């Protein structure tokens, strides 16, 4: 068993365990922290796949900005735990059954339809150089210039939308 394979299985175990921990935690703060672990593990996967820029973006944007926003809102609302309420009796078993079905379908497709057994290219010293990131930047600012600009508009609209949704109008109580 090569080092790559061992690394993959250990990281995959951590990622799946963190995702399950997020699902099962009763406290929303714990869920958010489990999700941070999951995002950090996926960032390491990106490094293994030779995508250092995406890995760093994942850490700063997902594990950093987005999860801090989540934690901030959880603590702002004081909504760590929900009051117990009545749930549909068949909902949970049905959800688990459907999830098992989804995994089974994915496994079937992976086992039966994969054309070639392609191996992951291990990143070399060249992968983690400035040259590679320059290629990404060139593609982003030439072939993908329009989507890139649209993304900036999307972010602006999201910012304005978030402010409009939460702003307190004059004379409003609360």
């Amino acid at each position, binding site marked *: 068993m*090569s080092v790559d*394979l061992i690394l*993959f299985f250990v990281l*995959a175990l951590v*990622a*799946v365990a963190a*995702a399950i921990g*997020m*699902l099962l935690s009763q406290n929303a703060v714990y*869920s958010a922290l489990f*999700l941070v672990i999951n*995002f950090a593990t*996926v960032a390491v*996967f*990106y490094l293994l*796949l*030779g*995508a250092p*820029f*995406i890995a760093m*973006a994942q850490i700063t*944007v*997902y594990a950093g*900005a*987005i999860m801090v*926003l*989540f934690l901030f*809102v959880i603590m702002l*609302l004081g*909504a760590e735990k*929900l*009051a117990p*309420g009545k749930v549909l009796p068949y*909902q*949970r078993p049905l*959800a*688990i059954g*459907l*999830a098992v079905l989804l*995994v089974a379908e*994915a*496994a079937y497709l*992976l086992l039966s339809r*994969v054309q070639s*057994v*392609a*191996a*992951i*290219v291990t990143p070399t010293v060249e992968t983690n150089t400035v040259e590679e990131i320059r*290629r*990404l930047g060139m*593609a982003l600012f030439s072939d*993908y210039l329009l989507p890139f600009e649209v*993304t900036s508009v*999307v*972010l602006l609209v*999201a*910012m304005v939308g*978030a402010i409009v*949704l939460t702003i307190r109008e004059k004379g409003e109580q609360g």
Partner: protein
Amino acid sequence: MVPQTYYIALSAVLFTLGALGVLVRRNALIIFMSVELMLNAANLAFVAFANTYQHLNGQIIVFFVIAVAAAEVAVGLALIVAIFKTRQSIDVDTMSSLKG
């Protein structure tokens, strides 16, 4: 050597866990986190394919997905805060004002 299939399988498992979270949990914040988990699983598949085909397009798509996810989180959390202000709860079962 790690076969590409392993990465796709991991991505599928993480996606399913996210979908399960959306179905099972009642806390709107945790449902939202599960959606993020699903986006992340899709990103992992994109980067794995970008690696096997040695093409940068996969990575660029992931970059856009991350940007859009950031925008989505900002608006979604603002919505959750607004809902909490009017209902004092973020239990999705209580959001049934439109129910006939």
